């Protein structure tokens, strides 16, 4: 029986008034009696969040998946195959990059990027897909399904399916099919069937509903590769574990390069997989503060996709977590310029980390993200995806409030090739 760690002693990050010189630098050497890295409990709960809220048809399968994942996690051969594919197929480790010109332009803390946009397929999503497809094959499943928003997870899933020769069906909201056309074409080239979902607003949550419907009807042979650290247990844990390669590498790289840990980690949050992948290996380092960045869309008082800032705990897609919803518990549509952040929920571990105060969460608007997108292009010669552009926008606000010898490490979790058409449109340029 694992016990919840008591409320942490970590000071909340006063994000926009980060006092100069006041942040603890270096490592606090006092041992931590409690760990933030022991959850979920055996029922898949992170405090009150998480769990397995699925139809009975799926329940035996979820239990099976959990048992098989436990075995795989303990199996050195599984880990070795995962590591090998990440190195030789995905191109890991991804570089840790000090960004001198954006650092200079913002005039505060040193800005470093974990460059997961250089991964094969252009985002962090592939890390998780490699892990899950290995598990699918271990379980003898012969057909893969997935949901996708920006199309990055769909592309990554289609990629591993091509690599291992498994048929692949990708559910994608019709709205997203239209705004992420290059990725739709990529998935088709890779041999996947792309099913546009017209229910609701035709975005990520509708795609996930449809994937769940397919899964219940095809439980016997189908493995559902969920693309973010959400869904029924064990997905939030499993996706986190596969994505934790980001934070594990970054921690080692940062120590090697600077001899110390970063002061603040920053990552964009859709469902929260790139963020938890970066954060988790640092959770027990008390000197490291963390900032998750949600999509504020047109503004928190208007349409947005910031579930923590504007939502309440509820149950959707197999887990209890913060959700955008009305007073009757009807789910409201998110909005973000970034299709990958346009989801009315968030992974349950983030809901827990918010409630206990270990991680701070903020949000940035479409406009701020667009500006940050251009800033990174101009200063560093890197075209980011619109999702990490949100993280960069938060860095833009945070860095000037910090000392020049402090370090911000942001997750550059995707490249912007997929977004150039929609960015052009927002900037009033016709291609």
């Amino acid at each position, binding site marked *: 029986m694992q016990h919840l760690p008591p409320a942490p002693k970590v000071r909340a990050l006063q994000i926009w008034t980060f006092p100069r010189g006041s942040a603890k630098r270096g490592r606090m050497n006092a041992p931590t009696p409690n760990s933030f890295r022991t959850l979920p409990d055996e*029922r898949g709960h992170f405090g009150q969040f998480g*769990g*397995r*809220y*699925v*139809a*009975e*048809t*799926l*329940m*035996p*399968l979820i239990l099976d998946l959990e048992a098989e994942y436990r075995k795989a996690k303990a199996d050195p051969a599984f880990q070795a195959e995962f590591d090998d594919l990440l190195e030789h197929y995905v191109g890991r480790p991804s570089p840790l990059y000090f960004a001198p010109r954006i650092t200079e332009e913002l005039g505060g803390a040193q800005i470093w990027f974990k460059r997961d946009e250089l991964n094969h397929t252009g985002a962090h999503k592939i890390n998780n897909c490699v892990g899950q497809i290995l598990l699918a094959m271990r379980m003898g499943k012969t057909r893969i399904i997935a949901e996708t928003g920006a199309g990055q997870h769909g592309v990554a899933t289609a990629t591993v399916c091509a690599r291992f020769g498994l048929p692949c069906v990708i559910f994608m909201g019709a709205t997203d099919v239209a705004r992420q056309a290059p990725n739709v074409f990529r998935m088709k080239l890779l041999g996947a069937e792309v099913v546009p979902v017209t*229910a*609701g607003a035709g975005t990520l*949550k509708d795609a996930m*509903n449809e994937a*769940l*419907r397919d899964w*219940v*009807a095809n*439980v*016997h042979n189908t493995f559902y590769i969920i693309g973010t650290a959400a869904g029924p247990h064990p997905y939030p844990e499993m996706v986190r574990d596969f994505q934790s390669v980001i934070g594990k590498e970054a921690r080692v790289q940062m120590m090697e390069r600077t001899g110390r840990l970063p002061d603040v980690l920053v990552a964009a949050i859709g469902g929260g997989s790139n963020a938890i992948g970066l954060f988790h290996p640092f959770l027990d380092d008390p000197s490291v503060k963390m900032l998750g960045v949600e999509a504020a869309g047109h503004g928190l008082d208007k349409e947005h996709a910031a579930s923590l800032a504007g939502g*309440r705990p*509820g*149950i*959707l*897609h*197999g887990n209890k977590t913060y*959700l955008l*919803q009305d*007073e*009757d*518990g*009807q*789910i*409201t549509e998110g909005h973000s310029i970034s299709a990958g952040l346009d989801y009315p929920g968030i992974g349950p571990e983030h809901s827990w980390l918010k409630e206990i105060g270990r991680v701070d969460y903020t949000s940035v608007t479409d406009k701020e993200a667009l500006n940050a997108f251009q800033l990174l292009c101009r200063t560093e010669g890197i075209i980011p995806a619109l999702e990490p552009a949100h993280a960069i926008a938060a860095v833009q606000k945070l860095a000037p409030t910090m000392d020049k010898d402090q370090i911000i490490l942001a997750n550059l979790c995707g490249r912007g090739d997929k977004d150039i058409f929609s960015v052009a449109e927002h900037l009033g340029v016709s291609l």
Partner: protein
Amino acid sequence: MSRLAQAFAKGRPALVTFVTGGDPTPDATASILDALVEGGADVIELGMPFTDPMADGPAIQLANLRSLGAGTTTAAIFRIAAEFRARHPEVPLVLMGYANPMTIRGADWFATECVKAGVDGVICVDIPPEEDPELGPALRDAGVSLIRLATPTTDHARLPAVLDGSSGFLYYVSVAGITGMQQAAQASIDEAVARIKASATIPVAVGFGVRTPDQAAAIARVADGVVVGSALVDLVAKHGTDAAGPVKELTAALAAAVHSARKGAF
């Protein structure tokens, strides 16, 4: 004896009918529920609309959207239920829906509202036995039946957990899939119902994919009840606020088939 127990103790199989509350409008639902009763339904399932009906096929998805589009709230569902109870003191009424609308104000609030509105039971699609604390204790304390689902994937090892804390009846979902799909092969239904009835002390009703009186009769030969949903919802989709007539007609045909399914068989 509770209203649900009575419905299954009439010496013949029971017809259980489902429609989505508030479809096509909150005001039109009363006439449709009355048509189900007049047609001969023994148990009424009233669907609580949800924006994300993950376990439902296109017919019931659209019904949910029509209902929400017409402004149906949780308060409206309980008003429909309370008015039904006033008109039909004897007919058991069950709410069926998803976890979030049921738990958002707290399980105790929901259970209390069920009691006030005369609701006999609740079917929650996405709360399996593993998450029972979310809703089960509140319903049991309030004396409202928690009706669980068993499915083709519910094996022998799981069945006791599904039955534990269930009351009213057990809803056997005959196909691994969503509502409105094709019906499972009759032989597989016969086998599953026999297996479940060997362990269950409550009645077993079978649903998902049952559309015609012939299908219903075949199931009623082995099960304690037959659930029909999408076929009735399709009539509401087609006839809108004038659906009561066609709904009553189909219900009557289904009721005749179900109620007489075992006559002469023994």
